[in-house]
Structures are given as structure tokens and as C-alpha cells.
């Protein structure tokens, strides 16, 4: 972001909070950027002559006689193909030692795509991970987060997905990324020879937390440029959106807003929807797919952050450690891809929907059997078969290190059905049964 100060300079700052300051002016326009004491800030409230500015890098050291300039512009990003392969901070400034990007200025947080100009998503994104492709198939134009406890290897999984996704462009929005994870992404992309396909906007834990508020908008503004102007298939990775929400709550508390559940602003739903709804499939072929990470605290998905997220996104992918096989799996129970029905059985083999459902149902029978076992009851023969099935299902299909194609996932499922169950226990449409049932295994 580069701004020419063209407006009057003000000195008198009345009130200073952790994230905001209030000054007297009758010139400010809503949402515009300002420079306070050399720091970028944004107008978030105007009451008469009192203008509240949100200072992105924090207010520490700002004096009451600070120099303030209004830029007359909303936050901007310069877009062009020069963005490719580059790393930027939250303001869109290069952090990779390279030159500034030349291009057209685009405002962040632009208007909404007319819903009638959208196309229904229908292109499958294969990831090789059966927990995703088989049970929770994702498609271009979808928005879906990983819900994961902080210790889960979500960044690795995201990087795998990104590289296998065959996107034209990958845009990484690092929101409060640890420096190590930042380097991890950099290395993975570099080693895969994919660096020129990637644009990164990074705010690490070392950077001020309010700056994070700019990252998703930066990433999505760049994404809209590539998807619309250049007709590309764009994949946006946002990690970790929970930290974005924390920054929102700091600002809203600083502005004395009444917070709703879990100290989050009452507008959290709208704030998140504004970002996630940028995911889109255009009829011309360009698309924006958003894969995000929302870390949970103590696995609690009723917390306002995952709860609002789940109401907005098109499903969620739960990562959980399966202690029996000692691996992280994509939990088939709470995970969901709402767009899977647009492709499964249509773009994939006809038996996909029924096989997927049957496999999960049997896995859930195994969970019941395990409860029985833990309560000290005898297990029936069916229970025992379920448990053996569940272990193998988990290992061969749910584990995140699986990397096979979808036909192989379906064949594996039939193989497990045939090995552990009778036909009626699997209960699938007869015509499919006749065609695929496999009891040789």
C-alpha cells in the first residue's frame, strides 16, 4: 500500500487505546486510510468531529500531538502478474527483498459478486487424501476450513492439498503464522518448484496482531485479480482464521462495543461471511477456492469462532488423532463437504455416494462397539468385525498420509466391506451391490 498524503495534517489526538485513537477532524471519510505518527491506520468510526482510527501496528508510543494525515483512499493493493512468486506483509509491502510491485490499485473489501453471475461449482479438486476425496470431496469455488486443535499438523495437510490441487495460482494468507511455519511453507513451495504460482501475504506472530485484519482482504483482493482479470483457478489458503477473529475482538472491545458470545463482536458472522463468500466459480472458468484453518480451543466447536465459521463455510474438515493407529485422520463424523453431492457419483464412479455413506455408517457402528467395550460388556460377533473393520478403514482410508486416486479409494472400501461384512449389513442399492460386491478378499 502506498499513499500520498494530500490532506491537512492534524496534531491533536484526544484518546488513545491499545488499538485505536480518537482525534478531532471534520475531513475524514469512513473506511479511509490515514497515517498516524508514521503508522497506517483506518477510520472506523466518525461521530461529529471525533474520528476513531484503528492503528494497525498498535498505539504504543503515539503522543497526543502525533502527526496525522488522511489519504482519501480505502486500503489498496497494487495488482498485476508481478505479484506471482512474491512474499508480502499485511500492507502489501515486499518482505522477500524484491522490488515493489507495479500495477493497478485495487481497493480491499470490494463489492459483492452478483449471485446471478455465479456458476454452480462442479469441478472436483483431488487431493489424494481419502478422508477428503472419498468422504468430503471438495470442489473449485468452495470455501472450507480445517477445524483442528493447535497441535494437529494442519499446515502440512494444507500444503499437501495446495500442491496437489492443480490450481493455477495459490495465495497464502498467513495470519499470525509462527516464523517456523512461514519458513515451512516457503520451503515446501520452493522444493515443489511451485514458487512462481504462489503469492503470499504473511503476518507472523512477531508482527503486531491488529495488522492481521488486513491479511485476508489482501489475499482475496489478489485472488479476485487472478480469477477475474486473468481467468485463473485460484486457491486461497488462510491460516489461522481464529487469530483474525481474536484481532477483531480486540478492536471491537477497544471501541466499547457490546460483545456477544465468547467476547466476540456481534458482527462476527457478517465479518467472516464477507471474507468466505469471496469463494466463487465464474462461468468464464476463473474461480476462487478458500481453504482455511480455524484452530479450536480445547476441541470446543460450540465456541463462537468455529460455530459462526461452520454456519458460513461449505463444510468443515476435522483433524483428529486416532490413537489406535497412531496417526492423524480426517474425522468422518464431524467433517462435511456440503458441495460433495455436486460431483460424487457424477464426476466420480456411480457407487461413490453409497459406498461413502455405508463405510461411515459401519465406522459409527464400530464407535458404538467401542463404547460397549469400554463399559465392560461382551461384544457380539458383529461388534468385533466392526472394530477390525474400523482399524483398517482408519489406516487405509482416513489417515492423512494416504495418497491414492478415488477409484482406488472406492475399491479399497468394497474390499473392506467384503472382508468383514455380509451384504445386508452393508446395505447398498442392489444394482451397485451386484456390480461391485467383492467377497474374494
Amino acid at each position, binding site marked *: 500500500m502506498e499513499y500520498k498524503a494530500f490532506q491537512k495534517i492534524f496534531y491533536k489526538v484526544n484518546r488513545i487505546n491499545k488499538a485505536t485513537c480518537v482525534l478531532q477532524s471534520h475531513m475524514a471519510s*469512513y473506511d479511509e486510510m490515514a497515517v498516524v505518527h508514521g503508522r497506517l491506520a483506518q477510520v472506523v468510526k466518525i461521530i461529529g468531529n471525533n474520528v476513531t482510527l484503528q492503528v494497525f501496528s498498535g498505539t504504543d508510543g503515539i503522543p497526543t500531538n502525533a502527526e496525522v494525515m488522511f489519504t482519501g483512499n480505502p486500503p489498496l493493493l497494487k495488482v498485476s502478474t508481478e505479484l506471482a512468486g512474491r512474499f508480502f506483509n499485511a500492507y502489501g509491502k515486499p518482505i522477500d527483498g524484491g522490488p515493489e510491485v507495479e500495477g493497478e490499485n485495487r481497493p480491499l473489501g470490494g463489492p459483492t459478486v452478483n449471485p446471478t453471475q455465479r456458476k454452480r461449482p462442479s469441478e472436483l479438486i483431488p487431493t489424494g487424501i481419502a478422508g477428503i476425496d472419498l468422504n468430503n470431496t471438495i470442489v473449485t469455488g468452495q470455501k472450507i476450513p480445517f477445524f483442528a486443535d493447535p497441535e494437529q499438523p494442519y499446515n502440512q495437510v494444507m500444503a499437501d492439498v495446495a500442491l496437489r490441487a492443480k490450481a493455477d495460482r495459490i495465495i497464502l494468507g498467513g495470519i499470525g503464522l509462527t516464523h517456523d511455519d512461514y519458513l515451512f511453507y516457503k520451503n515446501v513451495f520452493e522444493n515443489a518448484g511451485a514458487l512462481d504460482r504462489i503469492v503470499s501475504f504473511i503476518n507472523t506472530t512477531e508482527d503486531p496482531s491488529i495488522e492481521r485484519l488486513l491479511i485476508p482482504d489482501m489475499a482475496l483482493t489478489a485472488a479476485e485479480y487472478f480469477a477475474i482479470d486473468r481467468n485463473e483457478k485460484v486457491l486461497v489458503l488462510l491460516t489461522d482464521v481464529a487469530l483474525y477473529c481474536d484481532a477483531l475482538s480486540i478492536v471491537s472491545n477497544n471501541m466499547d462495543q457490546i460483545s456477544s458470545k465468547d467476547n466476540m463482536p456481534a458482527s462476527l458472522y457478517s465479518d467472516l461471511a464477507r471474507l468466505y463468500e469471496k469463494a466463487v466459480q465464474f462461468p468464464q472458468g476463473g474461480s476462487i477456492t478458500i481453504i482455511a484453518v480455524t484452530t479450536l480451543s480445547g476441541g470446543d466447536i460450540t465456541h463462537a469462532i468455529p460455530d459462526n465459521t461452520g454456519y458460513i463455510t461449505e463444510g468443515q474438515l476435522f483433524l483428529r488423532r486416532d490413537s489406535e493407529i497412531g496417526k492423524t485422520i480426517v474425522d468422518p463424523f464431524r467433517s462435511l463437504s456440503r458441495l460433495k453431492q455436486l460431483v460424487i457419483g457424477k464426476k466420480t464412479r456411480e457407487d461413490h455416494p453409497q459406498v461413502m455413506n455405508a463405510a461411515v455408517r459401519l465406522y459409527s457402528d464400530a464407535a458404538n462397539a467401542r463404547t460397549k467395550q469400554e463399559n465392560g460388556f461382551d461384544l457380539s460377533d458383529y461388534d468385533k468385525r466392526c472394530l477390525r473393520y474400523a482399524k483398517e478403514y482408519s489406516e487405509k482410508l482416513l489417515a492423512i498420509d494416504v495418497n491414492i486416486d478415488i477409484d482406488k479409494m472406492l475399491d479399497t472400501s468394497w474390499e473392506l466391506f467384503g472382508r468383514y461384512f455380509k451384504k445386508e*449389513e452393508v446395505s447398498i442399492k442392489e444394482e451397485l451391490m451386484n456390480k461391485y460386491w467383492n467377497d474374494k478378499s
Partner: protein
Amino acid sequence: MIATATKTGKVTGIIANLVTIASQDPVAQNEICYIHVGEERLLGEVIKIVHHDIFVQCFESTRGMKVGNMVEFTGEMLEITLGPGMLSKIYDGLQSDLKKFDSLFIERGQHSAALDAESLWHFKPLAKKGDIVQASDWLGEVLENAVKHRILVPFKVSGKFIIESIVEEGEYRIDDVIAVLVNSDSHKLEINMVQKWPIKRPIKFYSEKMRPFAMLETGVRVIDTLIPLAEGGTGFIPGPFGTGKTVLQHAIAKQATADVIIYAACGERANEIVDVFTEFPELYDPHTGRKLMERTIIIANTSNMPVAAREASVYTAMTIAEYYRSMGLKVLILADSTSRWAQALREMSNRLEELPGPDAFPMDLTAVIANFYARAGYVTLHNGESGSITFLGTVSPSGGNLKEPVTEATKKAARCFYALSQRRADQKRYPAVDPTESYSKYLEYPEMQSYLHEHISTRWIQQVTKARDLLIRGREFRDQINILGDDGVPLDYHVQFWKAEVIDFIILQQDAFDAVDAMTPIERQRYMLELVLQISNMDFKFGSFEEVSGYFKRIINVLKQLNYTEFKSDEFESKNKELKKIINEKRIS
């Protein structure tokens, strides 16, 4: 509009979409204004007045707005335009026709006409010169897709008028004068096919509102069979995210017996609108054989559209519904999700720094919801015809907690309650309607009971009650088995549990994505309920509990195949034979 001296004001403050304005002119609550920002005129609604300070919710982004910006008050409340040509349209919350925008993005300040000025309609008069008429009386009709769209005396006309002249049958545009009315004061009115009405004000030009008495068929078994919705009734579907609210609403939008379906997407995903407008033009109304889109109106205020218009969107839907009801039509509104509307109220109330109620929602939330639901209903019109609005909304309880304010307030207002259970959704038992928590008050109405007697069967209610009891008992047996272990309970507990599972799998569960299973006509529902109840009345001989589950799984499997097969086809009958064979293996008669 008559040119009066314009009323103006100036912006004095901006917090997100709340704008404060100072004005010396008289301004009314809920009056509409335009805020000038550069070249653009942004639409706003007055929501609070304190002396000369006017609080306005702006329906568009306030980016770039400044203190001192000029504001122009219109003297009118938020109104929509009513007339032929609304069916098949996709509107935003303020009734702009979204297809008329040619840009990819919805630019700020952009609005478009709700109706098509140039379309010709074949008008047939229903009234004649000399007739005495009043607001909402039918002057004539045009055929809008398959719907007889009555041209009404505008709702705003007050008092009785005589028809001085009315045009002959023929082709007319919406703006053409089709009748001239005159009253006893010689006051003349030229009537065309368009009228306007403020969305927050109920349209009440009917002679009587009756208790609902007829079932509204949805083709969804768990609803029609166990928890029926009534024509002119109200219901709501609360459920955590991912439990199937939207899929259920889409199924009902496709299958319900209604003349007009209004689908209000209120603060939800844009792709769900895309689903509707991609599918509906390809699908057929199972009752009329016409394209589904022909009877559908979509109101799209998706979650990334301006928050203030979210509240307006549900009122827009209701007002359009009331307009079609006044023509003697059967209208169904599906609103997804009413929680987003309540949240929009909350955002605004917080910015106004009003005293917050529970969970920071406005104090009057319950009253606002109750008033809104009360606009639905089955009515008799002045001419003796009847029309109805059935309203079914979803609620998105935060954290999945049904004790939160929006769910509680809606429970007081709506008569059917379809609780979606996380547990059932996790088990992929879709639709995840919890059969024991959910209820339909209409089932208790004597008029509804006699309707069911007459239209389905004399034993229907008895059978439905039986099925419900079996489900509740099945749940108790399941709990007992879980506590005491498979071996710790009598064999009969297993049998009872599995008999309930048969009802669960065959009646409750329904695959919304299977061409045959998705929609079950009432005749077929009657047949299936009868069949599963017969099975639960039978006695079987079992040696062990393992045998019980194995056996019932086979029964469920065949019954499921039945659900997937064309009703009474050869295949259906052969599956039926297979079922009889399995039954006879263990049945003791």
C-alpha cells in the same frame, strides 16, 4: 411522486452502516432517505429519532461517507412494487431484479426495476362497469406462467369506488390504465397493473383469518407422516450447522403443493441461491408438470450483502406472499435463516447502544418475531375465495443450543417445530428431524384430524400415534440395552428396539439426492406406514440377540430398496415378495 419541497439533512456520524443525520425538517420513523456520497445515492431507513438527530441504517456500504454529506428524505417508507412478472425472478432484499444488473459485481447505489415495463400481459376483466369495489377486489386477471394473477384494486385505495370504465380483454403493459374508478366525491382513480406497498405493514384486506385445517403436502415422509405442516400454518427448523436445514427447505421448495413458492435466502450462502436457480429451471413441479422456476420467486440477501437489507428481505418476501394470497393463491415462504435477520437487528441495536436483552439481542425480539409469523395464515377473501401463506423458517442456534433467544422466541410464534439433531446428522440419518422432540400442533386440531381422516385414511392418526410411540419406546429400549448390555436384557428388548429402527430407517430417513426416494406422495406414505406397522405388529421367533439384529437388518435392507424403487412397479412388487419371504422365515403366526 408529487414534487414537494424536499426534506434534507446532513450526515453527522458514521459507525459501519449506522449513520446519524441532523435535520430540521419533519422526518418519520422508517422513512426512506438517500445519502449522497460523491455521485452515488445510498439508500437508508430511519430507525430512531431523538429531536433533530436522525439515526439511519444504510442499506449499502458507507465507505467514503463524510460528515456533512447531504441527505434527502423521501417521505415514504420502504416499499416494494407489486404486479405481474415477479414469478421466476431473483431479487435482492430490496427487490432489485438481480438479472438486470449487467456488471459482475453489485455496485453500490445500483438498483433495478422489479417488474418488466415492456412485457405484454393478456388481461381478462373479472369486474364490469358499474361494479362497486374496494381495496384488494379483483378487477381482472392475467396469466403469469401457470398462475392466474389477479389484478387488484390497489391496497392503498381507501373507501368504496364505482368502476367507471374497464378495458376489454387484450394485451396490456403493466403501466397501461386498465380501469378508471370513481367514488361518491367524484374522485377519480386510474388503475394500472402495478401498485406499491410498505413492507413492514401487513396486508389485511380479507374478511376472515381461519384456523388451518388442511395438510400441506411436502413429500418429505417425516414431515407429512409424523409432523404435518398445515396450509396457512407456520413452522420452523432449528438445527446446528450441517444438520440439513437448507437441504430440507430445498426439498420442500421442490415438492410442496403450492401455487407460489417464495424462497428467501436471508444472510446465507450465495452458492445455495445458485443451486436453486440452476436446478429449478430444469426440474418439474410434481403436481402440475410445469417447470419449478415458474412458480418460484427468490429473494437473495446472501451473507455478504449489506446487513441492513437482511431484515428487509424477509419482509419483502412476506409482502409479496400477501399480495399473491390476495389473489386466492396458496403461497409457501421458505426463509433461510431467520437467525441472520435477528442478528442483523442485534448488530444495529448494539450500534444504537440500546439496552441489550439476552445474548445482546434487542429486548423486543420476541415481539418482532411473533408479529412477523402472525402475517402468515389461511384467509377468506371478500369475494368468498380463500388464499393462504404457509411460513417455514430455519433457525441457526449459536453453538447448537436450543435455549438461545431466537429459538425460544420462534418457538412461541411457530406451530410446528422440526428440531434437527446433531446426533442424527452425525449418523447420516437424514433428514435429521428428531421424531420425539419435534411436534406439530396442527395434529391436535379437530379440523385437521377430520381432514386427515377424509383425505388419507380413517386409521391414519391412530397409526401415526402408534409409530411415534414405537419410536419413543425404541429409544428407551436402546438406552436399556446400552446400560445393561446385550446379554443383560430380555431378548424382546432387542426386538422392540429393532422394530423402532425399521420405522426410523424406512419412514424417517429419506435420501434427498435420490430421484425416487426424495419425494414420497401421500398415497405412498400411507402404504409404507401401513407396511412397517404391520411388521412391528408381528411376532418373530429368535434364538439370540445377534439373530435379531441380523434379521432386522435384512428387513431394513429390502425395505430401503423399496424406497428407492418406483412405486408399484414390477421391481417394487418383486422386492415386496422378497420381503414377504424374509418375514415368513421367522414369523410365528
